[in-house]
């Protein structure tokens, strides 16, 4: 495993703290789902067709010139741990990591661009950007999409737009999402209501690794729920509005947590979390996420946590189970992982 992981950088630029609300918006992602004309969709294609699609797609990605010194991967040749690492870096979905048939991925050297091949759709191409950066991520993803669309014939019709395996992605095939950290809303128990409201705005919230994944450390992926019937720019603007609104709600919730008797409770919870992160001798990923969430909120509230937001973000990436094992250079069982994580974190925090 070590070889593939070693070829990746230890830190990624899209995890740098940046933009107007670095404490609340971790990163922005824009992805397009595309399929090749002349092949069945991935779920109905035969292995040799999938291999052919992968050959064409990876060659086209290379030819765009956007992947210099990039990674071109055949998923079935990778170890479980390699794939886990790619999932944690948000380049590969759980679905693709579990694929046994020919599947692939192209990832740019600084990991802002990637293309998944033979996921539910032949191509899932994306741009990841640090902080709240919808316009930037959209422009980069669109550039990649445009170049690939000139090299490969995409399945398209004037009525339904870009044709995808699942009708929920048909049309623009675009999903724009922000990874938002909403600890105060969660702490006040307001998230169920917030999510309920989102559903009326054509927006959906998912767990940290996207569809079908857990909510960890109060991180939510907020994205457009529909893809058809509006322009790409409209979908972006809608998410932009919704995120700004969520930020306002989170700020209000943080103010509530700092009022009257709640303030001492909040401060106590934050510093207890920091103490645990600094001194624990064994730390599960879930426990880490719960506590880093509080420490991160504490930093945003102006208390000295000893870390800036970029370090918070990078540490959050590095503490994931696959990254822990990559740092250890071998597979670890959960107990070994928790011990390694606690020690690794102490070094980072001191």
């Amino acid at each position, binding site marked *: 495993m070590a070889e593939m992981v070693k070829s990746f950088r230890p830190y990624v630029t899209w995890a740098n703290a940046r933009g107007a609300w670095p404490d609340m918006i971790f990163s922005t992602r824009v992805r397009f789902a595309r399929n*090749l*004309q*002349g*092949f*069945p*969709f991935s*779920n*109905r294609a035969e292995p*040799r*067709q999938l291999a052919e699609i992968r050959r*064409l797609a990876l060659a086209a990605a290379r030819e765009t010139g956007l992947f210099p010194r990039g990674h071109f991967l055949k998923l079935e040749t990778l170890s479980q741990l390699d794939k*886990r690492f790619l999932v*944690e870096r948000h380049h590969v979905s759980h679905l693709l990591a579990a694929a046994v048939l020919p599947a692939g991925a192209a990832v740019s050297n600084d990991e802002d661009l990637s293309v998944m091949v033979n996921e*539910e759709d032949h191509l899932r191409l994306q741009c990841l950007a640090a902080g709240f950066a919808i316009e930037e991520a959209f422009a980069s993803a669109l550039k990649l999409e445009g170049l690939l*669309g000139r*090299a*490969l*014939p*995409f399945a*398209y*019709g*004037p*009525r*339904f*737009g*870009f*044709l995808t*395996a*699942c*009708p929920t992605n048909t*049309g*623009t095939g*675009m999903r724009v999402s922000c990874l938002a950290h909403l600890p105060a809303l969660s702490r006040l128990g307001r998230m*169920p209501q917030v*999510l*309920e409201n989102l*559903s009326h705005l*054509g927006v*959906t*919230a*998912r767990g*940290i*690794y996207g*569809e*079908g*994944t*857990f*909510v*960890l450390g109060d991180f*939510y992926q907020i994205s457009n729920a*529909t893809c*058809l*019937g*509006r*322009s790409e720019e409209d979908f972006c603007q809608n998410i932009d509005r919704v995120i700004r609104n969520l930020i306002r709600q989170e700020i209000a919730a943080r103010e509530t947590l700092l009022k009257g008797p709640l303030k001492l409770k909040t401060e106590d919870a934050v510093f207890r979390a920091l103490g645990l992160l600094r001194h624990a001798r064994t730390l*599960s*990923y*879930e426990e880490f996420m719960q506590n880093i969430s509080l420490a991160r909120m504490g930093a945003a509230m102006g208390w000295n946590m000893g870390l800036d937001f970029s370090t918070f973000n990078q540490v959050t990436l590095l503490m994931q*189970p696959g990254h822990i094992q990559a740092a250890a250079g071998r597979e670890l069982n959960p107990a070994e*992982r928790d011990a390694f994580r606690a020690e690794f974190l102490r070094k980072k925090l001191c």
Partner: protein
Amino acid sequence: MLCEECRKHNAVVFLKLAVNNKVSELHLCPACAAKKGMGFGPETGAFNISDIVGNMSGYFKDFLPQERKTLRCRGCGLKYSEFKETGRLGCPDCYVSFEPQLNELMTRIHGSAQHQGRAYAGGPALKLSKAETARRLEELRSALKDAVAREDFEAAARLRDALKGLEGRHG
């Protein structure tokens, strides 16, 4: 707190999920969590969505209109009933074969059945490998033979054009 699954053992695995814009919490004992393939739960970050919200394809079943049993995609042969079951289409031609039914579904899902985003002028012909080209030629020739035997001249003409196109491109 007791495990929500077996209601016998103490729940020690607490999972929080955001599904369909609802936060749901699941409290399980280790044995039931392991049974659901969630032994590591958040460690892997993934769960089996159908265990928690039921099969999502019910959504398509409810919203797709009834159709005669024989309706199939003329491209890949996917049965309409299979599409209703899984919610996944088989190939770009499915969108033509099931257009009326999809119109209804798209309006339900997206609030519209007309693409308003960027138009696509089309890409170049695929640079297929020799093996794939040979296989496709073989398939077309055999289908052409069948069509001629059936005296389906419309299909035969279409296949002949496709054959010519493929031969022309690849010699």
